[in-house]
């Protein structure tokens, strides 16, 4: 059982996570973009596009314009999530870099706060009629996984503290392909299981929005109308001769029409 939870599953989930994301992104990149569909206000240069995407990633300006409360919850959640993830680097890196040590406290409080925006997002789905209508089981499942992961993490931090050296030995062992079984609290296994479920679910769900933004044609194109946009699967126009006037047929018809009038 221990070997399954601590060795086999982590490898499997990481592989599914990386391969799944890789395949999704590969399919997206492989699919051509036939038309220029960039939304206004559109940047005209590559540099402008870079700034737009950085702005989109860091600030969610479209969401800010759409719904302030939702933006606040969504933005807070993502910032807090990044802080928590960066804090977790201390379990993966040896020796721990100075900058990770620098954000340990920040990451800790971020971890305590993260259920608040998550709970808000969940409540919002249930309370606002429109949001309730569009929510599907997958939306609740993603929120459930995130909430369970963070809550079990907080419990681990506050009440059921595990022996950190063991955890780190487990993770470093996995990274260096010399796995060993830790003596960890059962709650740690629960936390790990939730994380692994999240990893497996990620590539096949809406959680892929993270990478999709950078490839979204309405966001990452330029409005450089001086340059002709080439459609990679363009095809020549084929007229249906029976029904449609070709320029020649048209001229003929025009002459006939003139004759009738005179």
């Amino acid at each position, binding site marked *: 059982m221990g070997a399954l939870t601590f060795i086999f599953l982590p490898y499997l989930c990481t592989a599914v996570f990386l391969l799944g994301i890789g395949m*999704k992104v590969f*399919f*997206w990149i492989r*699919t*051509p*973009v*036939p038309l220029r*569909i960039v*939304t*206004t206000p559109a940047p005209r240069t590559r540099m402008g596009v870079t700034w737009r995407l950085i702005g*989109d990633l860091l600030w*969610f300006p*479209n*969401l800010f*314009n*759409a*719904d302030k409360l*939702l933006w606040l919850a*969504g933005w807070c959640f993502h910032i807090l999530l990044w802080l928590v993830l960066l804090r977790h680097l201390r379990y993966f890196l040896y020796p721990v870099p100075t900058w990770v040590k620098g954000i340990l406290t920040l990451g800790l409080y971020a971890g305590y706060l993260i259920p608040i925006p998550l709970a808000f997002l969940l409540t919002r789905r249930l309370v*606002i*009629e*429109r*949001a309730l*209508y*569009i*929510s*599907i*089981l*997958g*939306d609740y*499942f993603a929120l459930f996984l995130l909430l369970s992961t963070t809550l079990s993490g907080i419990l681990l931090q506050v009440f059921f503290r595990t022996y950190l050296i063991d955890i780190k030995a487990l993770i470093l062992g996995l990274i260096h392909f010399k796995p060993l079984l830790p003596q960890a609290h059962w709650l740690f296994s629960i936390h790990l299981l939730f994380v692994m479920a999240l990893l497996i679910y990620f590539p*096949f*769900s*809406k959680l*892929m*929005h993270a990478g*999709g*933004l950078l*490839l*979204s*044609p*309405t*966001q990452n194109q330029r409005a450089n109308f001086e340059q002709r946009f080439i459609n990679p*699967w363009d*095809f020549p*126009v084929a*007229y*249906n001769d029976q*029904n*449609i*006037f070709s*320029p020649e047929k*048209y001229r003929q018809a*025009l002459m006939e*029409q*003139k004759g009738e*009038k005179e």
Partner: protein
Amino acid sequence: MRVPVPIPEIKIGASKHQRCYPAKEKDMAKIDLPKERVERWKEVMLKKMAEILEKYRSVRLFLDICVKCGACADKCQFFLGTGDPKNMPVARADLLRKVYKRYFTLGGKVWGRANEAEELSEGVLQEWITYFYQCSECRRCSIFCPYGIDTAEITIAAREIMAAAGIATKYVTEVVAKVYDTGNNMGIRPLAWKDMCAFFEEDLKDTEGEDIKFPVDAVGAEVLLLPPSADVFVNNNTMAGYAKMFHAAGISWTTSTYCNEGGNFGLFLNFANMKKINNRILEAARQLKVKKIYWGE
């Protein structure tokens, strides 16, 4: 200035009965589409859908990454106007998304319920016919979506899929067929066009007291003007305005009787027809040997 629009309460099925008239056989034949819904419509539509997913990154990406945050929900004028929840851009895209998930994603095949996958059935098709023709492809939702998801792209894809199986609306197909017959959406025949332009000239002579020309099919003019044909037909002041502007600026210009339409209804039907209609502009410009095309709509 922002004018707050009251967000309506959800009324399920509120605009379910507002549907477009189906296309007529005579129009469908002229625009190279099946005359009526083909017998094996399901296979044809799924095949077309697979083709579109290979051709448009936008469609594939937008179907994959929507998180259903609902930011777009109260931005669509069709939802604000009707209160029908299926007119929320996210719900409209879901009509296509559920079929995509059922047939083209692992998530939908393995765990269809969580991912809301659904088979393409008669019921789903009827919803498509209703709600994909209640979208004006204005793209307002896309500027509020955190990922720039453009429901117009989804609508365009869905209409193209339906058109491939011979399902379209009378209004759009009629207009597209008219363009191939007369060169414009209004169905104005070449001689009528010339007559109207002559009338404009007389009218402006009376009101302005100047010889303001409305050249038609003038080979070698500098500019080919493509007004929306409604400007000639109804919004006459706009059309007179073009001529006055060219007259004052001293630019030689012309309209073409082969192509005198700035709007392209192919956008509401399918890519092939949109391309054909736009190609007429180039043909007209080459016939008349103009240097520039002024194109307004």
